[in-house]
């Protein structure tokens, strides 16, 4: 396959014509495809074209602030918008990129409405191709199916989830932008346009207006003698203020930390005053409910074996060790691991302490029997895996409060630490070679 010849896979829109598609459409280092389409002369025409067409629709998800990616985006967009049989995507360097002064302009790369529309069309067509490739019905191909198909076709071992290939609707990928802020005669629509941050300042203006209004009402009540100190009972632990990112997303504007802090302070001031329904609704717009963590954890019901003994199973992992534990309701504190007693399996005291910890924490030291199997890892990680498995199994025997206490003690959390890989040019993961001055 010519590595230098332009790949002549047609754009999705032009699949109607029966022109022969270049077998083995190998793209030159395509900035967005993670893998070139495999050379397959025997493959049926549609699937080859799909294989070539789909990579163009793969988006590297990234944050808006990565200017380089947007430069790549510009390249991708310009490549696709030519509408001709696809060429090698050359990075088009616009004047904005090369001069240092216009970095701010590049950062605010704006996408025209037509461009976004075109992206949406291409996404929809690409989704149908993907459905065909996977042998599914294009009509009922949902986003979850798309995600599954992409992980199947392009398996990636990258740790950063956002760096893996995804295929999502352009609305989720391209940042939301503002339409033109003024009318035909040039007069801006918003009265605070010339401040630069019109949404944020108008929000501050509105909130301050409500504060003044509430204070005025409070003064009137005090003058009439009807004022009573009322304690706020509605914002204990169940809700939290918006975070800065959520507020930025709401306003479609960049904020600084000081701006955000000012706004929260103003809202706190407003909520401290006696509010009426409209003001409470206004404040409620900026509060989010916090789900209690332990509610997410599903507690398995108890199971009963032939003798009528209650038991429960749990699974646990630590580094590369996997364990499964069965905890019986009544017993004498016997623990059997892979058919061997724990005293023999774990000669080291430290490992046995790890096994005892969940029971000791719940004051149930001699009350349960445990049978478990473990594989992989070393001695310490096997002990940790069994501990996690036992704690999870124990959840079925105890109250919800005790589950919450266990969660806070860290007994129910999988330890995410894994061995860090060794890097080239270094002796280990972090250790560098000895530095020699000469």
């Amino acid at each position, binding site marked *: 396959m010519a590595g230098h010849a332009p790949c002549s896979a047609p754009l999705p829109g032009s699949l109607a014509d029966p022109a022969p598609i270049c077998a083995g459409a190998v793209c030159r280092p395509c900035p967005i495809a993670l893998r070139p389409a495999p050379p397959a002369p025997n493959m049926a025409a549609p699937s080859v074209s799909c294989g070539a067409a789909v990579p163009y629709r793969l988006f590297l998800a990234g944050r808006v602030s990565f200017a380089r990616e947007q430069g790549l985006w510009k390249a991708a967009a310009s490549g696709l918008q030519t509408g001709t049989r696809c060429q090698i995507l050359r990075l088009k360097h616009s004047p904005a990129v090369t001069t240092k002064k216009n970095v*701010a*302009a590049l950062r605010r790369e704006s996408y025209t409405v037509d461009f976004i529309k075109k992206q949406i069309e291409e996404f929809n067509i690409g989704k149908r191709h993907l459905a065909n490739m996977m042998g599914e019905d294009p009509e009922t191909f949902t986003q979850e199916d798309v995600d599954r198909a992409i992980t199947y076709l392009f398996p990636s071992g990258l740790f950063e989830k956002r760096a893996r290939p995804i295929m999502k609707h352009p609305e989720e990928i391209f940042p939301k932008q503002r339409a*033109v*802020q*003024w009318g035909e*005669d*040039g*007069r*801006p629509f918003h*009265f*605070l*346009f*010339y*401040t*630069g*941050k019109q949404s944020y*300042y108008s929000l501050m*203006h509105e909130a*301050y*207006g409500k504060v*003044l209004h509430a204070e005025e009402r409070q003064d009137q009540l005090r003058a009439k003698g009807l004022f009573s100190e009322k304690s706020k009972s509605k914002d204990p632990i169940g809700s939290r203020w918006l975070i800065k990112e959520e507020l930025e997303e709401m306003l479609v504007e960049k904020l600084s930390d000081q701006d955000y802090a000012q706004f929260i302070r103003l809202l706190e001031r407003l909520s401290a005053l006696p509010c009426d329904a409209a003001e409470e609704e206004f404040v409620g717009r900026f509060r989010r409910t916090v789900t209690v963590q332990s509610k997410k954890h599903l507690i398995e019901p108890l199971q009963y074996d032939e003798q009528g003994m209650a038991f429960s199973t749990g699974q646990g992992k630590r580094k590369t060790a996997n364990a499964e534990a069965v905890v019986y309701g009544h017993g004498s504190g016997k623990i059997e691991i892979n058919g061997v007693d724990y005293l023999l399996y774990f000669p080291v005291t430290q490992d046995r302490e790890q096994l005892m910890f969940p029971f000791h924490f719940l004051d149930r030291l001699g009350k349960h029997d445990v049978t478990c199997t473990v594989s992989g890892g070393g001695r310490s990680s096997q002990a940790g895996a069994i501990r996690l498995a036992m704690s999870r199994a124990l959840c079925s025997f105890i109250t919800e409060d005790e589950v919450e206490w266990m969660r806070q003690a860290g007994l129910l959390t999988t330890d995410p630490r894994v061995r860090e890989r060794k890097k080239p040019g270094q002796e280990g993961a972090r250790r560098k070679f000895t530095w020699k001055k000469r």
Partner: protein
Amino acid sequence: MATGAVLPRLLGAGVRAAPRGRAAQRGRTLGSAAAAAAREPERDSDRSARILSEPLKHSDFFNVKELFSVRSLFNARVHLGHKAGCRHRFMEPYIFGSRLGQDIIDLEQTATHLQLALNFTAHVAFRGGIILFVSRARQFSHLIESTARSCGEYAHTRYFKGGLLTNAPLLLGAQVRLPDLIIFLHTLNNVFEPHVAVRDAAKMSIPTVGVVDTNCNPCLITYPVPGNDDSPPAVQLFCQLFQTAVTRAKEKRRQLEALYRLQGAPGPHPADPAAPGAPSPGAQAQLGVGHSP
């Protein structure tokens, strides 16, 4: 008059003057349907040119004199300045004297300057100009923003970013239209230095109206209004005056446009040069906005 000097800039802002030569040529082909269609835009531009020139024929077309008096300025404590130690050298012509160490502003001069300023503001609003209210006093920020919003204009009482006026295409957008008039209710910022917008407006040839207290520098302001900018009644009075001037002017503009549209092609003859803004006797009763003889 300063209005004459600013006229070319405002003409460019939104209204095109009718080219006289072409209009005359089109007038010769009267009678054909095509010519009738061609006459419409010519009539429109003619009409708009007449509407714009109408207020310029009178000295106080919008009758801003009646909005205030020296007594009302006194009651709003506009005459109270800062202590003599804070006095700015260039404010000395506007200061009447000093009482117990506090400077007193000459309200006769204030009245003259205020009338000029309000008249100019009204003219700018009449011609559809963008008016920006600027201030950096936190105490009156909400009031000024509400004033600007209620008269359909713009306000900026927040932190003023560096190149907002001088580097507007980068900060605000490529084809942004800059304000045609900036009204300063407080010329100083929170550290008692002249507001950056004063200098920037002068750089961008934007006329400014500003309430200057005894510690302010009136130099770069086109229409300074010596007066108190610290007492709430004074600031409220100024806000109200500017708001009334702007709303009056816009209302006048709407009325004139409606009138000219009803009357049709030939423009109105100025029957009475002394009576401002009343082209025909029949319509004079409708324009009841403060006609002083």
